[in-house]
């Protein structure tokens, strides 16, 4: 275990313990409350549809669920596999009133999107869920030998079963990196909060990975980036999963001017990942949807988190924390740092 992780954890040990004790109870309660709220909204016709999570078809998975009728509301679930950032669907639902289930990070995306005027103010009803941090299904899969056929959560444990094994894993050790450092788990903006706000503390120092990475030489850093991006298959899943990627024409697809080729040459893959990440400067909520979507398991959040960190340090800005402060790259301060300019 990382040393900083340990320090952080011991600092928040009490909060963590209380949370763990109530996990089972709160998950079930949240699920019931989501259903209740969905029923209420639909029966009042306050929304056209609810987007939440339903049971996935594979172990360790939940799936986005679009619900329009009261009968379907019982299919809504809540557990630690509800990893998708559902706000990405809003772009194709501009004519509808949507009830949206949001975690802390998803709600931050919504605030960032509202800065960019992506929807009408009364178009959304946010069902906010204080998040217990999501489980990294790939980490779990890699921790056991053999195929996982069933999985469920029990308290702070994940119980996975295969043909000839049953393994109990500590939930806390199998969280997404973006979730481990999260300090905005309770949605900042929500029309209703299902569940009590959770105490905000990181399990690992939020920017620990970036600090470690920065200690490496430029050559090593580039090598790492090169290796990661070389696996890219240009499926655009990172782009499509990201709620902030909605350009009518992505720079990748532009034919005039043509910024880059569509093949797999290493420089084009690097180009794509640099610009995709950089375009999130001051807009990324750090939800990690890009990394989770990648079928080739490319590390992506170490890029966006760096940008988040820089924006915090340079402009004291965090995405989606308040609805008033404009995004950092759309404004300026006369006193902004400029010692890098000759």
């Amino acid at each position, binding site marked *: 275990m990382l040393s900083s992780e340990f320090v952080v954890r011991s600092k928040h040990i009490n909060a963590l313990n209380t949370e763990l004790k109530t996990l089972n109870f709160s998950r079930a309660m949240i699920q019931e409350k989501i259903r209740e709220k969905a029923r209420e909204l639909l029966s009042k016709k306050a929304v056209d549809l609810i987007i939440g999570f339903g049971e996935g078809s*594979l172990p360790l998975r939940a799936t986005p669920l679009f619900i329009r009728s009261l009968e379907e509301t019982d299919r809504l679930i809540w557990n630690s596999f509800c990893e998708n950032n559902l706000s990405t669907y809003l772009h194709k639902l501009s004519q509808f009133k949507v009830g949206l289930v949001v975690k802390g990070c998803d709600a931050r995306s919504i605030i960032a999107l509202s800065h960019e005027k992506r929807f009408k103010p009364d178009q959304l009803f946010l069902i906010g869920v204080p998040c217990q941090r999501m489980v990294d299904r790939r980490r779990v899969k890699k921790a056991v030998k053999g195929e996982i056929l069933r999985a469920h959560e029990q308290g702070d444990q994940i119980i996975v079963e295969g043909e000839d094994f049953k393994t109990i894993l500590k939930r806390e050790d199998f969280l997404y990196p973006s979730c481990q450092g999260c300090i905005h788990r309770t949605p900042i903006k929500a029309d209703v909060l299902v569940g009590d706000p959770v105490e905000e503390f990181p399990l690992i120092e939020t920017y620990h990975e970036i600090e470690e990475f920065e200690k490496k030489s430029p050559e090593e850093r580039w090598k790492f980036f090169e290796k990661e991006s070389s696996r890219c298959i240009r499926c655009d*899943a990172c782009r499509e999963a990201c709620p902030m990627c909605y350009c009518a024409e992505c720079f990748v697809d532009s034919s005039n001017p043509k910024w880059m*080729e*569509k093949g797999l*040459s290493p420089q084009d893959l690097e180009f794509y990942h640099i610009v995709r990440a950089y375009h999130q400067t001051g807009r990324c909520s750090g939800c990690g949807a890009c990394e989770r*979507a990648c*079928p*080739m398991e490319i590390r992506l959040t170490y890029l966006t988190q760096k940008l988040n960190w820089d924006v915090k340090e340079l402009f004291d800005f965090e995405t989606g924390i308040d609805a008033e402060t404009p995004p950092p790259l759309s404004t300026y301060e006369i006193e902004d740092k400029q010692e890098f300019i000759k």
Partner: protein
Amino acid sequence: MKWKLDKKDFKPFLQSLMVEYDLFAPVQLAEGVSVYKKIDRPDEVDLSSSNTQKPTKEVFFPQSETMFRYEKTGNQHQVTSTEEVERKRVILGARPCDIQAVLLIDQVFSGKEYTDVYYVNKRKATTIIGMACDHPLSPCFCSSMKGGPFHREGSDLLLIDLGEAYLVELLTEKGMTFQKNKFFKEALAKEINSAKEIEERATKKTDGSLPVAGIEKRLDQMMESPFWERVQEKCIGCRICTYLCPTCHCFDIVDEALTNKGQRVRNWDSCLSSLYSQETSGHNPRPTNRERTRQRIMHKFNYFPKNFDRIACVGCGRCIIYCPVNFDIRQTIKEIQNSILQNEK
């Protein structure tokens, strides 16, 4: 007669293959991520994953492939085609589902009127050493799609993992040329029997119950069904399912230029991309994800069967495993089969 290859002889066997052939086999790029690559050293080969991320089709139909290079001198262009394959090739470790898929896209690329030389040349030069699938995964449904974990069609040789050794079956003429391979020994009766047991166990494990019969006919009447609107809702429109699909074969042709020289390249393309059928005028016959998802499903289960008499899905399960939103084609198939058609109301 059946043969066996001791695992201690496996690396020397690969080494010997590489003398004569370009060897393509699964290589791990990162933990849990593997693809087919041309092998430089035998220890690169990694057969531990149940299947690669990118399918075997990539060896014949690379994601990005140069078709020709050109160089401009004055007003002339010297064109150099890259269609020829210089060395014979071996693919090692391809799973039966992927091999089935190769047989499917063979039909597209060979074709009656036009032959896609880039694909066909590679295909002709290649011997396929299949790897029987002893541990099919739960999202696999090859048995429902006219295949199976030990399906032999398309493999020139088939390896069956017996633990200490591989049982080797020589299945075609190309395969028979390996008969005299010095690493192959005669298999014992008990080894053949244990292979049979493994086969039975694996076959039982895959889902053969998916109701695909008659799906083509049903889809004939579903073009304008509200079904598509519903089924596409959670799809975010990325291309994972099409790029990782062993039967998807759409491509785009583009020029890449550097001042006076350049190349024509073909890259995989996907019907789920909005640009796929967008015309220069701006008109897009498939403007939303509804039409694009419909195209994906229709092509596999209706158009392809109409042209080639077979469903263009082999049940490898990749689109299910890697989908970021857990879009499950098995459910889609079931929903299509259970949907109420206009004339049945």
